[in-house]
């Protein structure tokens, strides 16, 4: 975590103080940070379910540029944003550890830092090539995110085209 890169896939533990330093700018007084933490318990309709740890895998050569693209989308949509940083951890993550950190710095709190931070986590979950494996005492499963129709090869019209 000695890096000052704004967009990074790393197998090292993430630090909130470190990401805040990465987006710190003399004219920015507001930083909003989203911290995605590994949950030990998930409440479901059939009761609580336990997780032992998570394991993340990434296509890092594609994921880092995609994170940077989300940053660029934010700067375009919220032009007062001074800096964006998005860090995602890979490998084994224990309960209570951060798997993703997003920081957005703006001059004032009304300049879009909350909205942009929210936007970034939604975009990350939709398009950045990272996968999560849940591990319990009695097994493991790869989690698949919700299908994004515009990315899915299984679109009927695309399959049709290819058959010609």
């Amino acid at each position, binding site marked *: 975590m000695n890096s000052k890169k704004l967009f990074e896939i790393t197998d090292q533990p993430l630090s909130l103080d470190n990401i805040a330093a990465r987006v710190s700018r003399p004219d920015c007084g507001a930083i909003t940070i989203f911290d*995605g*933490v*590994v*949950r030990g318990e*998930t409440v479901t309709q059939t009761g609580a379910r336990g997780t032992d740890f998570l394991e*993340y*895998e*990434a*296509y890092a*050569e*594609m*994921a880092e*540029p995609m994170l940077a693209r989300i940053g660029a989308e934010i700067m375009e949509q919220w032009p007062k944003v001074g800096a964006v940083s998005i860090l*995602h951890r890979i490998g084994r993550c224990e309960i209570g550890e951060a*798997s*993703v950190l997003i920081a957005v710095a703006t001059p004032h709190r009304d300049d879009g830092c909350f909205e942009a931070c929210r936007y970034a*986590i939604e975009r*990350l*979950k*939709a*398009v*950045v*090539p*990272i*996968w*999560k*494996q849940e591990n319990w005492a009695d097994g493991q499963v*790869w*989690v*698949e*995110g*919700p*299908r*994004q129709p515009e*990315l*899915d*090869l*299984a*679109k009927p019209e*695309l*399959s049709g*085209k*290819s*058959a010609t």
Partner: protein
Amino acid sequence: MIQIKVRLFATLRQSAGWKEKTIEAPDATTIGDLLKILEQSYPTLQLTGRSLYAAVNQEYARFDQLLQPGDEVAIFPPVSGGID
């Protein structure tokens, strides 16, 4: 014939038992054609009937995209980074 670098991730990598291979394919091969070649060569790799994304040279691509010699094609399930 052209050579394509194929990369698999997550559950696809696990079911194939490999994460990266160079595949020989005819000229004018599309991603869709490549998927058929892969399924025939690696029976444990189940690709049809499921949601699947592909990227060519680190950019999302469509089923009918034509591949060029030396392209890196990644095939993977819907992404699930971050937390719920």
